[in-house]
């Protein structure tokens, strides 16, 4: 007894030393502690085996398997073959506690005996137990990308999953399934095309409700590490810069038409009244035919028509500028399409990596 206590003290010291070291450098000291408890049980030192096994449950770094095994040692220590040492109520309670979160657990052969196996079956029949499994590393891609946790129980029940951020306790995901004893709780990692998660640590709380008025409730908690980089978008342009648009027409001609009107009309008048042939047709000759009366009317018509056109003018279309503005408009539309397409691509290719610690606490 004293020797076992000394070995336990040494092992616990080793455990503490190992906890302070990086995870990758750890050996298997908790297994050694459990081995010590089993050895004590084999030496018929049931209280010692129970005491050592209970210490495992207090170790934060103990895995689910180690905890289960420690609980089995505790149950075996409470229900040995020696009748005098049997405490069936304690053993049954321990087994029920074990089966609640690991209802499929099997007693290792070295601890097993007929009476304990019978008690295990009794516990299994009378306990609402759940088991949580799944892929430890999962990657969800895009808006439809999802992760899932597999839940299984020995009775049909209602299962609810709540994921909360460790920092701030903000609820990220709530999901559930019902009316089944074996199913997946799937949850998407994007909502409204935005990531639900940010990079960080989360708690995954899974609660199983046994149906019925006297139904039991089992809760399991997992640690979750999420790698979710910030999803940034390109700015989609909404308005064109009107200052960069080119004028599509020249200015109105307006009063500028006065000069060509007068010159052209004046030329017509001149041609009809002042330009004469030589000889007897010359203006200086009394035989000159003189002005052609039609000319004045034509000249007037030219002046009036030119002035009217000038003042009615809306400007000449600058084809090159129209084309340039059209090209600018098309480039603007393209920039919208490009930015939208790129943002869509970023959404559809967005990756959320989830690392579940499936060691049930």
């Amino acid at each position, binding site marked *: 007894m004293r020797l076992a206590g000394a070995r336990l003290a040494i092992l616990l010291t080793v455990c503490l030393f190992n906890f302070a070291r990086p995870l990758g450098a750890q050996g298997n000291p908790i297994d050694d502690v459990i081995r010590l408890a089993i050895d004590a049980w084999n030496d018929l030192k049931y209280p010692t085996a129970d005491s050592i096994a209970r210490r495992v449950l207090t170790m934060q770094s103990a895995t689910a398997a180690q905890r289960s095994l420690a609980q089995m040692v505790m149950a075996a220590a409470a229900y040995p073959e020696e009748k005098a040492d049997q405490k069936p109520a304690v053993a049954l309670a321990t087994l029920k506690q074990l089966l609640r979160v690991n209802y499929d657990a099997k007693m290792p052969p070295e601890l097993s005996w007929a009476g304990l196996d019978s008690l295990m079956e009794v516990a299994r029949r009378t306990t609402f137990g759940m088991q949580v499994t799944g892929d430890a590393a999962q990657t969800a891609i895009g808006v439809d990308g999802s992760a899932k946790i597999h839940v299984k129980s020995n009775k049909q029940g209602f299962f609810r999953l709540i994921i909360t951020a460790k920092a701030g306790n903000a609820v990220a995901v709530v999901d559930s399934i019902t009316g089944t004893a074996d199913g997946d709780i799937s949850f998407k990692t994007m909502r409204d095309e935005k990531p639900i998660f940010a990079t960080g640590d989360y708690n995954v709380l899974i609660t199983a409700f046994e149906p019925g008025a006297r139904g039991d409730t089992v809760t399991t908690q997992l640690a979750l590490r999420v790698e979710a980089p910030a999803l940034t978008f390109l700015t989609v342009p909404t308005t064109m810069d009107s200052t960069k648009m*080119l004028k599509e027409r020249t200015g109105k001609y307006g009063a500028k038409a006065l000069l060509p009107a007068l*010159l052209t009309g004046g030329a017509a008048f001149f*041609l009809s009244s002042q330009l004469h*042939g*030589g000889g*007897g047709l010359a203006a200086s000759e009394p035989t000159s035919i003189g002005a052609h009366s*039609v000319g004045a009317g034509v000249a007037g018509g*030219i002046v009036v028509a030119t002035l009217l056109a000038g003042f*009615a*003018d809306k400007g000449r279309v600058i084809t090159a500028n129209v084309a340039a503005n059209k090209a600018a408009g098309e480039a603007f539309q393209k920039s919208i399409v490009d930015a939208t397409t790129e943002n869509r691509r970023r959404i559809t290719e967005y990756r959320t990596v989830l690392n579940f610690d499936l060691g049930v606490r």
Partner: protein
Amino acid sequence: MQARFMCGALVALAGSLAAQAPVAPTVAPKVKGPSKAEFRVGGIMVQGERNYDFLGSIGTATGTIKGVEVLLRGSGAGLYVRSMSGEFGTQPIVVSADARLLLGRPGFTIFAGVGRRGLKGLKDKVYDMVQGGVSSTLSIGGTGLRTHISGNIILATEKDEPGGVAASVKNASKGIEGEAAIFYRLPKTPFFLNLGYRTEVFNAVSGNNDAPEEVRGLRLGAGLQFGGR
């Protein structure tokens, strides 16, 4: 004197080109003015009179000149061809055809050309002629209306003039032709209409005789035009 006046008017009109220069864009491309390539083909009709001095006897007759003209020009050069035939009462039929090489932009163009002019009557007379002048065509904004002025001097010799080249040069016939018109191109179509006034004075020299004449009248035209807005 009259020719100098017309030339001065044309130069002044060309000066107004600056007033219709398009607004410079804030970025490329550069805006181009109305100097695009142009092809125009159309019929012309001059409704007017022919006045003449034949051996001191002054006469006048009304009539019509009909013809066709073709213009093909780029931004710096072009070609103009015209053929006309006019009948004025009982006077000889006036037939002419000429071709001109155009240099410069529409706003101010210098041209030179050759042609043949003939009188078809009791005795046919045919003159070979050279000519040179200036013209100006201005667009009135984007309305499709253009003003046009042209003036040119004609030197001609009678074909088969007795006495050879020396006599031909010595007895050269001289003339002046002027036009002032507006061209209106119908919106969204290649059709144009033309209204103006045309005067041609010509002093035909044949041997020792001068035969001054002036043909003038309302000029109307229509046809097809591509480019040149």
